[in-house]
Structures are given as C-alpha cells and as structure tokens.
C-alpha cells in the first residue's frame, strides 16, 4: 500500500507500519462504533499514515472537524478527539463535551493526544470539569511521518518560529523523541554530528533519553551510520532562494501540502471527447506527488530546464510502446501486450499530468518578472551589489508586489551581505511599512529576531569567505547532467547540503574556520554500541546518514542530497528528516504576524 517507502536504503515502511499498529491498538481499545473529531491540522499528516479505510475497519463511522458548541449528531458509542496538546483546543473539547451531556444517550469520550500527552492540557480539562468524562486519554507519538522512501517530516509549521523566536523547545523535544522511536526501530545511531544551538539541544536530549531508556536496550543492528543535526539558522540563505528543481518549482508556485498539490484545472480537462470545453472542471486538480509514481521519481529532482527533454523522450517511448500493438501478431503477443496495458496506461496518464504541470510552470518561469527576480537573487548569492539598495526590489515595492516576495528578496540580500548597512536596512523597512502598512513592523521585528534581517555588525561581511570556502557559487553549472549540487539553484550550492557533503568527505576539520563563523556550536557525539552490533562494512558499501533539519527543509535541498546519494563514488546515502517541508514563502509566512 505504501510500497514507495520501502524502496530506499532504509525501509521506512517499518516505521509506517509501527505507527499504524499503534493507531489500530488505540482504536480497538474503544470498543464499538466510533466517531473521530479532528483537530483539522492533523488530518493532512494522518492521511499519510492511515486512509479512511483503515479507520473504517475499526468501526470509525463518522468524522468531524473540531469546532465549538455541540458536536454534530452521530449514532455511535464512542467519540474520540484526535488533537494536538494545545490549550485552546482543550477549551473547545470541553465545550463539546459539556453541551453533549445534556441530551441523548450517554456516550464514551476518549482523547488521543498527538504527538504527546500533556499534563498542562489535562489540568485545563480538569479545571473545566470534564477530565473525568474521558475514558481513555492516551498519546499517539506520531513525531516523524514517512513521506517518501528517504524522507520524514514532523510537519510542524511553527517549529522554526517557536525555536528561534520564542525560545520554545517543544518541537525539539518531539524531534528527539522521534529520533528515539527511529532508533528503537532501526538501531542505535553510533555517531551524532551537529551544528547549531538547537542541534546541540536535541543531541543532549537524545543522550539523556537514552539514559532513561537503558534497560530496554534494543539489539537491532544499526541501519544508520550517522546522524547529522542541522539548525535551519545555520543556513538561512538557501530557503530564501527560488528553488529551480521540478518539485521545488511546483512547491514554490502551487505549494505542496502533505505530498498533495492543487493545480488549476484548465490544463487537465479531458481532451478525449471532441466536443471541446463542454464543461471545464472548476475544482482544483489534486495530485499526489511521491516516488510511487515512476516518472515523477525520475524528474522531481531535476533542474526544471532538464525536465522538458525527459518528458518528450518519455512521450516517444510510450507512443512507441502503444504502436507495438500493430506488430503483435500471435495470440501470445497480443496477450502479452494486453497484460502490459494497465502499466502503459498509467504511464501515459502520468506523462500527461506532468506535461501539463510543466507547461503551467513554464508559463511562470518564462515570464520576464521571474527572470528579473532570479537575476537579482543570483547576483546577491554570487556577491554582486549586496550592499546597496536594489532597484528591482525598490520597483517591486513600488508596484506593490506580494509582500512575501519582497521580504524574501530583502532577507536574501541581508543574509548574503551578513546584514545590511543601517541606512539600507532602514530604507527598505520604511518603504515596506509605507507601502504595505505599519502593522508589518511586527513582522519586521520577527525577521530581525530570527536573524533574517539585520544590520551588518561592525561593517564586516563574512559571506564572501563562506561562499568561497564552501564553494557556494559555481559558475559552470550543468543543468542537464549535473556534476555538483549547485544545479538545484542553477549556480548556488545550498550551504546546508554543502556542510553535509563536506562532513562525509573530507570531514569538518577542513572547514573549522567557516564553522566558527556560522552560528551555534558544532559537535560530535558517539553512542557506544555493544560489540555484537558493530558494523563490518563491506568494501564499497555506502554509509547511511540521517540528516535532520531543525526548522525546515526545502525540496531543492532534498534534491541536492538525493543527488549526493546517487553519486557513484559518493560514499554516503542520505535519509532526510525535518520539522517541516517548506519553501521560502511558507517559511516567511509562518514568521509573519498580522495583528488584525
């Protein structure tokens, strides 16, 4: 059912099955028919773990969205609330329960906290006088959700903001817990590397938790060789730049949510019937994007400029395959052809979809404004004119382009210049406040707190040093047949991925100086293994590194890491984990504050 999770070096289906089992066990505890009341935020992530059919098998008959007042009527024995442990949600639940009691037959209430039970919330329920109404109050430790064969995410939108702005480490604690779950299933990870304040804390928590769990020592042969914990604020630059891989662009333009994307329907109108445009679909076309789809797996991580040729090649192959039917003479041949038909039809459907998507994207990428924006981004990243007010940004503000676009560019410039000159910074800020409204002063404060926007300290610009040492800007990029990770941004090599690459070879000792410039400590920890579990590496066998982005990761970075995994002499394969799959827009969006 989720076969694509088991394709990679590490079979993430094991994790999925484990969490599914846990869910089933909980559902079976509440005997009889059930209705689930959902914290709306959870439905997306849950969809990746369990479809409705699984719930139905366990007598879930109704599903509602959590909201105030009364629950909708449902003739069920159990009402189960699936919620994140948030106080405001507890208030709503209490309201539901209290208005429920007054009518109809008594029903059993249960509550499932995702991912963790909270004393604070239970205290709130107690204060509201409903704690006793719940028969089962349990937690469902859904920390890391498998998205693909090499990708896990906590889908915690606010993680970056909480960690870096608000000093709230809850998501780091969950991350550490998630890593413990992974280690319980895939063995202790012998080496932990990290860079950044949050990385340090997660590592500390893991070591501490390991001590707590001693005794339940697992004796699983370790699947992961290394864990690399990276703070997002070590590399604030990468997410700000526009991703140029196929998947990255889909995300930039349409936004991928829990592996689904909603696209304008026009391009997907069925073309078969000749009576053109009878009823064009009005509902957005929803597509799931993951490596279960063969074609998508092939093109998702390519630079968009290399996608077209693959698509046309594929088109030829498929039509040739369909032509085969004319050559099929014997019954046996025809039979063989027919047996391949479903697969071919799926391939054709997939090709049609991606051709349409590519066309949609092309419309955007060939526009002049996209070109101008990209030019400015690339100038900044290669270190050109980062210290003065940029004309394009100025024009964008004057024309009231979307604020997020402007903020992304200004932040990018600030990061590429290790902060802006006070005069330049104040100018941008004034322009933004005057054009978009003074309320955005709160957003600007947030960006400053997160270090995305700042005055240059002491007039020193460290970025060129970092850029040169880490070779962040590559002039000769081969978009079609890449030789370096810089292809994902057509020139810029994502800093985060470069750090991972250098860690695996030749090691961080070679870049101590740059590491000192980047924020937060860098460290290495070893988790001793019992001798029986120590790995004897076969010659030529790659290491497996779990890389955890604390604060979010972009699809372009993922693509770059996949590129490194595929390198023949790379020596390391990566499994990627993150608090959130994101892009510059969703990232800035989460940092914005709108007081009204």
């Amino acid at each position, binding site marked *: 059912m989720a076969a694509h999770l088991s394709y990679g070096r590490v079979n993430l289906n094991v994790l999925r099955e484990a969490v599914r089992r846990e869910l089933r066990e909980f559902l079976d505890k509440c005997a009889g028919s059930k209705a689930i009341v959902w914290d709306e935020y959870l439905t997306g992530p849950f969809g990746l773990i369990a479809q409705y059919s699984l719930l139905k098998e366990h007598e879930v008959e109704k599903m509602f969205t959590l909201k105030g007042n009364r629950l909708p009527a449902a003739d069920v024995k159990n009402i189960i609330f699936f919620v994140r442990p948030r106080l405001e949600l507890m208030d709503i639940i209490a309201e539901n329960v209290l208005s429920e009691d007054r009518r109809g037959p008594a029903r059993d209430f249960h509550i499932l906290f995702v991912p963790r039970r909270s004393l604070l919330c239970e205290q709130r329920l107690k204060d509201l006088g409903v704690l006793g109404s719940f028969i089962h109050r349990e937690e469902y430790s859904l920390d890391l959700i498998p998205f693909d064969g090499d990708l896990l995410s906590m889908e915690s939108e606010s993680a970056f903001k909480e960690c870096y702005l608000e*000093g709230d480490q809850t998501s780091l604690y969950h991350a550490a817990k998630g890593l413990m779950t992974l280690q319980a299933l895939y063995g202790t990870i012998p080496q932990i590397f990290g860079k950044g304040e949050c990385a340090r804390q997660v590592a500390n928590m893991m070591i501490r938790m390991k001590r707590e769990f001693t005794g339940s020592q697992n004796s699983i042969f370790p699947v992961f060789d290394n864990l690399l914990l990276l703070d997002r604020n070590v590399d604030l630059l990468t997410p700000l730049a526009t991703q140029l891989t196929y998947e990255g662009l889909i995300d930039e333009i349409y936004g991928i949510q829990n592996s689904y994307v909603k696209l304008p329907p026009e391009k997907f109108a069925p073309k078969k019937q000749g009576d053109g445009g009878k009823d064009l679909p009005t509902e957005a076309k929803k597509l799931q994007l993951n490596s279960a789809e063969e074609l998508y797996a092939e093109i998702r991580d390519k630079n968009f400029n290399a996608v077209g040729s693959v698509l046309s090649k594929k088109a030829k192959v498929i039509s040739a395959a369909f032509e085969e039917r004319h050559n099929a003479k014997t019954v046996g041949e025809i039979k063989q052809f027919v047996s391949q038909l479903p697969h071919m039809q799926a391939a054709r459907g997939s090709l049609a979809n991606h051709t349409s998507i590519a066309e949609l994207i092309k419309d955007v990428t060939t526009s002049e404004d996209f070109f101008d924006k990209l030019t400015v981004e690339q100038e900044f990243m290669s270190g050109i004119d980062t210290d003065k007010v940029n004309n394009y940004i*100025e024009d964008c503000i*004057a024309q009231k382009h979307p604020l997020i676009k402007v903020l992304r560019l200004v932040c990018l410039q600030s990061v590429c210049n290790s902060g802006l000159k006070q005069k330049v910074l104040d100018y941008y800020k*004034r322009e933004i406040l005057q*054009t*978009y409204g003074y309320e955005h002063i709160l957003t600007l404060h947030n960006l400053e707190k997160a270090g995305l926007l700042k005055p240059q300290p002491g007039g020193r610009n460290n970025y060129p040093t970092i850029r040169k040492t880490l070779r962040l800007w590559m002039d000769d990029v081969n978009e079609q047949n890449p030789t370096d990770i810089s292809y994902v941004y057509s020139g810029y090599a994502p800093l985060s991925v470069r750090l991972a690459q250098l860690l695996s070879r030749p090691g961080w000792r070679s870049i101590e100086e740059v590491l000192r410039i980047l924020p937060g400590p860098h460290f290495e920890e070893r988790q001793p293994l019992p001798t029986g579990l120590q790995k004897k590496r076969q010659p030529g066998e790659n290491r497996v590194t779990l890389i955890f982005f604390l604060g979010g990761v972009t699809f372009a970075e993922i693509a770059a890491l996949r590129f490194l995994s595929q390198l023949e002499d790379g020596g390391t394969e990566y499994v990627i984990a993150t608090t959130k799959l994101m892009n510059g827009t969703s990232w800035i969006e989460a940092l914005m504050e709108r007081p009204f």
Partner: protein
Amino acid sequence: MDCYTANWNPLGDSAFYRKYELYSMDWDLKEELRDCLVAAAPYGGPIALLRNPWRKEKTASMRPVLDIYSASGMPLASLLWKSGPVVSLGWSAEEELLCVQEDGAVLVYGLHGDFRRHFSMGNEVLQNRVLDARIFHTEFGSGVAILTGAHRFTLSANVGDLKLRRMPEVPGLQSAPSCWTTLCQDRVAQILLAVGPDLYLLDHAACSAVTPPGLAPGVSSFLQMAVSFTYRHLALFTDTGYIWMGTASLKEKLCEFNCNIRAPPKQMVWCSRPRSKERAVVVAWERRLMVVGDAPESIQFVLDEDSYLVPELDGVRIFSRSTHEFLHEVPVASEEIFKIASMAPGALLLEAQKEYEKESQKADEYLREIQELGQLTQAVQQCIEAAGHEHQPDMQKSLLRAASFGKCFLDRFPPDSFVHMCQDLRVLNAVRDYHIGIPLTYRKYRYKQLTIQVLLDRLVLRRLYPLAIQICEYLRLPEVQGVSRILAHWACYKVQQKDVSDEDVARAINQKLGDTPGVSYSDIAARAYGCGRTELAIKLLEYEPRSGEQVPLLLKMKRSKLALSKAIESGDTDLVFTVLLHLKNELNRGDFFMTLRNQPMALSLYRQFCKHQELETLKDLYNQDDNHQELGSFHIRASYAAEERIEGRVAALQTAADAFYKAKNEFAAKATEDQMRLLRLQRRLEDELGGQFLDLSLHDTATTLILGGHNKRAEQLARDFRIPDKRLWWLKLTALADLEDWEELEKFSKSKKSPIGYLPFVEICMKQHNKYEAKKYASRVGPEQKVKALLLVGDVAQAADVAIEHRNEAELSLVLSHCTGATDGATADKIQRARAQAQKK
C-alpha cells in the same frame, strides 16, 4: 535400590503414594497445634500460628500471640495480638496474612508481621458476628467467605478489589451448617453447605438444593467436605463413615469408599496431581491418616503427633511439631524407573550408568537392550523427568547422570530439556534449603501459576535479596525483569531502616544500584517520602534519569524550584509548564517572577503561555525585564486588538513609541509616530472626504486619494511622509492608469523627467490595452530599453532597426523571437542579413 521404594504405598493397582520428610521442624513449639489457629500458605508458603486465640481474658500475659514461620519452622515474625478476637486466619496469593475478626474486620499483615491494611466485611457481618470464615484462592485472586451468626454467607472473591457479595438465604435454615466450602465454577465463586442430610449450593442469585449422584443411602449428616486445589473435584464425608468423591459440579460420581469410622475427621483434603487419572483424598483424625481413592483398600498411616494438612497442587503437606512431610502420588516417570523389577527404558538406563561407573561391561548390555528396542530417547527423557520429582539432590544427580550418559549415544537429542532441568533443580534445591524454607516441588514450580517471577517475588518478600539476585544471575534473566527489580525492592526496604542516616542510605543504594537499567529511583524515593524521609527522597531522586518521574514527586514534596530545574534539564516543555503553573500558585507574584528570571527557558515558555492566556501578565514580565523592544511590540498589538476608537489606538501607539525610544530603537519609534500621524490624518480624510481610509497603508492612502481625484492632497501626503520620488511616480502612474485618465497621465509624464524612465508607462498602458497611449511613451524610452518598448507596442520593424543599429545580439534574437512568420517575414530577413554581415566583419 530395593529400599528406595520402601515408602511407596500402593493404592489399588495403578498408583503408589509416598510420604517423605521435607524438614524436621525448627520451631520449638510449646503449645500443641490444636491449641492454635493455624494457617499455611500453599506453594510451600509460610505458616501462621495464633496461640491462645480463644482466651477472653484481657491480661497482657494471656493475650494471643501471632507467630509466623517459614515452612521449615524458621521464625519470621512474632507479635502480640492486641485487636479483637480472631475467628480465622488465611494467606492470600500474595502471601499476605488475612486475620478475620469476630466483628467482620479483616486485618492484613505482611510476611514479617508488618501491618498493611484492614477492611470490613460489611455491616451485616458486624451485627451478626462471624461464626466461621474461609480464605480461598481462585485464578482472580484471594477471596474471603464468611458465615455469620445469622447463618448467612457474605463473600468477596478478590480482596485486592473488594466487592462484597451477600449470598442468598437458605430457606428454613435454623442452625449453622454442619460443614461448608467455597467452590468456583465458571469463574463465579459459590458456596456449598450441608444441613443435615441436605446439600445446598449458593451462588449470587439463588440457593438451590443439590444431590450428589450415587450417594449411598442412610446419610443423615455430612461431617466434612473437601474441594480439590483446582476446584474440579469434591469429596463428602458422611456420618456413616462413607466418603463420596465426584466432580465439584455434583454431576458425576468418581468413586466412593467406606472407612467405617464415624468420628468426624479433623481434616480432609484432596491429594491429586494435575493430569493424573488417580483421585485420592487424605483424611486425618487425631492419630490416624488415611489415603482413600478408587480402590477397595486404603493406605493408613499412624500420626504420632498432632498434625495439620496443607493441600497443594500435587499432593498434601503434613506438618506437626517436629516434622514437615509431603505426601503425593508417585509420578509416572519415577514409578517406571524405580518400580521393583521395572524393565522400562529409564530404569535400564539408570542401571547401565551405574554399571558404567563400576566399569562393568554390563553397562554395554543394558544399553544395547535399550537401543535394540529403540527406546534410548525415551529413556533419557524418563530420567530427566524423574530427576525433577526427586527431593534428594543425590538421587537427582544420579538420574541426571544417567540421562547425560544416555545422551552420549544419541545423535540429535535436543539439549534444552536437560539444561532446563538442571537449572530448575538448582533453583529449587536452593529455595528448599531449610534456611529459606520454600519446599516447592518441580511440578508446582513449572505450573503455569508460579513462574520464576513469582518465585523471585516470594524471595523478595522474605527479604532474601542475595539469593534472588544469585538466581537471576544464574538464570541470566534480563536485568529489568531480574536483578534491577530485586535491587529496587531491596532499596525500598533499605529506606525504611530509620536508624541509618540519609547520606548512608542514599550512598549505599547508589553503590549497589548504580546505573542498573530499569531501576526506578523515583519509586524508591517515593517510598522514602512515604516513610517521612523527604531529604533522603530528594537525594535518591538525584539518581533518577527520567524527569517525567522525578518532577511530579519533587512537586509533591514541595521542592518546586528543584522540580523546575529538573524539568528544564529534560527539555520536556510540558513538564516545565506543569511546574510553572504549580509554582505560580505556590509563590507570590514577585518570587515567582524572580524564579523565572533565573531560568530563561522557563521564562520564554511562560511568556508563550501568557501570550495566549494572560496578556496582562506578559506585559508585567516585559516590564520586569526592562524589555522595551518587546513592550513596544506588545503595545502595537494592543493598539489593534483592544482599542476601537482612534484616540485609544493612538494612545496605545504612543506608549509603544515611548517604549521603542527606551529600547533605543529610533527607527521603530519614528515609524510608530508616523503611523499615529497617518491614523489621525486618515480620520480627518474620512471626515472631510468620506470613504474608507482607516488602516490603509500610506501608499494605499495616496492611491485612494488619486483615484478620488485629490491629486493635491496626495502630493501633500507624499511630501509630509517623504515618499521617495521613484515610488511616488510608480504610484501615480499605476493609479492614473487604473483611472484611465490618459490626459492627466500625459501631463504627469511631462511634469519632469521620469525617475523611473518611460518603459513603465508603456507597460502600464499596454496592460490597459491602450496601444495608442503606449506608443506616445515608447518614443521617450531610453536607448537600453527601446527595443523592449517597441516590441511591447508591437512595432517589430522599428524594433529590428534599433536592434540592428545597436548591434546587440541579444536584442536581435529577442526581436526575432517576436517575428511571426506571416507578417514579419521581411523584418526577419533583415535581421538575418544584419547578423550575417556582423559575422563577416
């Protein structure tokens, strides 16, 4: 060998019973057993004696004494009975002593005479007093059944989860039943009682008269009844000296026996073995012991002393002042091997091994004989099994040696059974030692109810920690189930030793336990706290790695600040919150804030909490920290959230601006002042011009003004707020184009040289599909953007000319890409020619 079966007594044709000594009792009793209330726990458990139970005098010397001994008679505890008169004693499955008092109160004591708790059997029992009581065991736990003075029964099937059940009345019952017992059928506890010649069965719903099938006639009264260990069988002893044996359901008779003794027996218990077909009952009188079963003859023993019978799963224990014996049916394997002249494979193998040790060739003969019959595997198995049933280590050894010898001649004999038997016997021999005094048989040890865990628990209950640990280590049990659990128990016991100082106890415990996985220091600490040793508990909690366990206990002990730092260490924010809310209630506000101040992580969490729950507190927190920047932001938010009126909003903004000044954030302060200015202005505009201005951005305010035709005001606004020229031009351009006020736009374009060039003019006109206007501006576009402008207005030919003139390759290709085959053919050719020329040069 012939003497080995000397204590075997045949019962009928198929079974032997043997009685052997477990211990000679060490207890040096002064009284006769008959003068005491006696209770012995099953599975080789302890023995409790209550001396002088029936003395009513209150003099101290005559007070009853409760003694507890191990099965070998080692004293475990002795205490003066100071409570009310006891009717009955009994042991629970957890080896707790239940003492049922006449008033229906049940007092529960530990193995070492430590008082645990008490409960009452209800008001009815209290009023009518207890006439008789039984403690019984079912698979759900230990129950108490009580016969009251009103001849009614009350029972609780599980004292761990006390639910009292009053049984239905027996119609017309005037006197106490002659005998009664508890049964357990279909998971329900029942009571069977005998009144004269009648039997009644009570369950929780009804009382029904029952008749045992095939009961001999002439019975006028039942003197004793006995139910088997597993509640499957029932035996009835009548006043005619006749014994009926059948199923406990009273549906089937198994056998009967007439012993011709009419005296009521002192005790009657079943003596059977799981999975054995033999049924036998042991009946004891003052000086006589009789084993009867499905055979015309019985086995008789003489009792030299006053004795007491303890039914066991696989036999009967019999103890008296001087000895403790075990009577049971000889197991099949032992019978096969040891029966006189047995030719069973096991018997031959044992012989063979003996001869082998004597270096006699007969060994070979025996072995051959077994092998020829192909029974060597069976022989080895028999020897292993028989070893398990032997009490004497010597005999166990010779049987195991024989098995080991036989194994040598077998190719693939799985070693497990042999290894396990050796291990089990070592464990059993260790606990059977009279110092320990747990006479477990192999059968009991391996029976489903008594696992190694239970055995370890029993050792722990007896405070035999070292032995328990040795057993764990010997059996290589996982630490969590084994050693650490025992150490934890030891530690819990240790903290109760009040004469040792806190430091010493904590050190001793940590030395022994160290980081042993699975030891819960918090459990131990909780125990210490329970004994009133808070300091010790805190010291112990230091060793607890799980904050989730540490913190709640610290809170309970009112060490909230310590709890806070522990919670922070763990990184578990929920835990931190919990402590914070606790602290908030516990401390006064000032102290609470001070505590927060020293804990930045807690402080930021609490701020988050306040942001959503207590905004005012948030302000106080910022104030306390002189965090003016955040205070500024706080008031900005407040200006939107709370205030409806302009004056209120402006006032809030003023506070914000002041805070920003204090924070030395000049920019934010100025911006906020600008915002105030704008708000006031917008208000004035609304008053003067009507329409919606409030909360528009400055930019949008200007745009709205232009759209409303108030150009002057817009320009004034731009001057007042120093809108940069470039942006003002964009703004005006966009607004005028939106208005399609082309005249004004042209005027504007000529007002001075455009700071943004003229391409935007072209673009914006084209956006409004006004090619005519666009063309006007195209001519004014500077040379760099000329081609672009011309292409925008669709003048491909002229664009080509300019591009050729510029000799710019990029521009040339741009133009070329705009050439459509039909109309621009000539232009395209022209460009190609120009290119060709350029290349030539």
